[in-house]
């Protein structure tokens, strides 16, 4: 008995040492980066780092006055939201078929959809660039929307499919004998029953779209279609060098709403990130 108790307390200090250390590893760089957002530029790139800066709202003023930040934000929102809508419209019927019907080639079609997730953006970057150039969509929000939708379609389909697989077949049989047709069953029974999965898929797709970098860099060549992510990368050159305090501020402005949404869907996160392969 005594040995068991000692055994436990030994584990506890080790446990908290390790968990605490990693928490510091996670939080310290972020807190430090947050202070960057509120420093004058003169205290960022210096021979000896300054840990206790003099506070300033330089970055904030810069954002509001010099950068069309509202327009970047609007581009981000339009492209991301639009892509998620496209994904849901395409993915829900596909997931319904993949999860509820027996048909020849179902496994292969499902795997094809999954495998598009594995393609490096760089592989299709050149052709996609020419494609949008030829149809005149280069440097538009619409092109970004279409690309984001394509990147996330496999993910969204597989997450929703996984949740649909969990709905008992009986429910569908019951609806059928009650007189409902296929599409009615999808609309009235299946979609409401897997709503958590649909929301999870939408949130994860939105985050990936917000973070997407390479395509956005290629497609959005002028500030007309810049999104937040690429705007950051593009306001680095020029005579001013990299404007770190503005970058830090913008990244935290984007981080806070994402964190809130993710905490709301926390329970479903592991399942969403593995496209349904791991049930949380």
């Amino acid at each position, binding site marked *: 008995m005594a040995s068991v108790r000692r055994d436990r307390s030994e584990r506890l200090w080790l446990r908290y040492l390790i968990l605490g250390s990693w928490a510091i590893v996670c939080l310290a760089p972020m807190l430090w980066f947050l202070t960057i957002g509120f420093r004058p530029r003169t205290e960022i790139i210096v021979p000896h780092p300054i840990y206790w800066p003099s506070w300033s709202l330089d970055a904030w003023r810069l954002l509001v006055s010099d950068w069309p930040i509202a327009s970047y934000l609007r581009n981000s929102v339009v492209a991301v939201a639009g892509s998620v809508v496209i994904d849901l419209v395409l993915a829900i019927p596909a997931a319904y078929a993949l999860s509820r019907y027996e048909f020849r080639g179902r496994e292969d079609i499902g795997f094809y959809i999954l495998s598009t997730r594995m393609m490096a953006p760089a592989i299709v970057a050149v052709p996609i660039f020419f494609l949008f150039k030829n149809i005149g969509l280069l440097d538009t929000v619409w092109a970004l929307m279409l690309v984001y939708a394509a990147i996330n379609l496999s993910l969204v389909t597989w997450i929703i499919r996984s949740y649909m697989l969990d709905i008992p077949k009986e429910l569908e049989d019951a609806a*059928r*004998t*009650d007189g409902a047709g296929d599409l009615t069953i999808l609309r009235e029974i299946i979609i409401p029953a897997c709503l958590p999965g649909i929301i999870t898929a939408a949130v994860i797709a939105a985050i990936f779209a917000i973070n997407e970098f390479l395509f956005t860099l290629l497609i959005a060549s002028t500030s007309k279609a810049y999104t937040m992510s690429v705007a950051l990368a593009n306001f680095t050159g020029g005579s001013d060098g990299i404007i770190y305090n503005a970058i830090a501020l913008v990244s935290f402005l984007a981080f806070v709403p994402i964190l809130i949404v993710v905490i709301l869907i926390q329970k479903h996160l592991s399942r969403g990130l593995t496209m349904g392969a791991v049930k949380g």
Partner: protein
Amino acid sequence: MASIQLNNIVKRFGSFVGVENMSLDIADEEFLVLLGPSGCGKTTTMRMIAGLEHPTGGQIVIGGEVVNEIDARDRDVAMVFQGYALYPNMSIYDNIRFPLRMRKVPADQHDRLIRRAAEMVELGAFLDRKPGALSGGQRQRAALARAVVREPQVFLMDEPLSNLDAKLRASMRVQIKHMQRQLKVTTVYVTHDQIEAMTLADRIVIMNRGIIQQVGTPDEIYSDPANTFVAGFIGSPPMNLLAGEARDGIFRSEGIEVPCPRTVTGSVTLGIRPEDCTVGGGHLQGMVYGVEPTGDITYLTVQTGKRAVEIKAARDFRAPIDTPISIGFDLSRLYFFSENGERIRRPA
């Protein structure tokens, strides 16, 4: 409301045979129970009647009309499922309303019909709850209400009580039978529980491996089994089946010697129900293996050779294990089965 005919129904899943050449007439207003072990094809048969599965061959007739090609949604049958299959996102009220909406019953009648159906199963107070907030018994009653709300031609019930605890099951059983008699709707009921089958059915269909073993009233199934499968399936504990040799009017097996009709000869199986055995008498010699008092009777297991024989003994019977014991059979209730398991009937 409607009779049902199954004519030479076949259902295959790939090479696996679910139902083999099944023919059955179900009378109007009849309560028919499909009974059998899991995988025997009973649920598949029911799902074909519902239109949720399509037969590989044969004809299904409901109310005089061939329905093979008609979708489940248009067959006008209502089904109650083992897992209740209540729509989790809808209130009980909306659950019961769903079939009315789907079948385009005029909206001004909905409320009255729903409340009446809920009243029948005493669920009136729970109409605005979600299924998740109800107990198992209440959910099953909600599922029943959803089935009765639109007076279908046929009720199909797929093991509706098997997720309930024993007490609740008994009371729901009475309710289902009562309701069926009231509404006079042809009902097909699938179960693997013989008590449910015996208590509910007008007729029982016993199935095994996709083939009908016997069709009959509960009395017939119990007292006149057609083969060893039925004999060994019905009764609790079921009939003792003892293989042996019959010659010159005597059946012999290890530790057993009983008279038999002279028409029974060769390798046969003797069947005797536990309640037709008595302690004392001289037909079976063996050792006491176990004694299980239950209050109203005592189950006695006797070992002869490598076989165990079940006997229902008097409530106060007790015996230490491994003591020799002699058992007598009621000779008027012996059953004999041929080597292929078919019953050997006395010549008329």
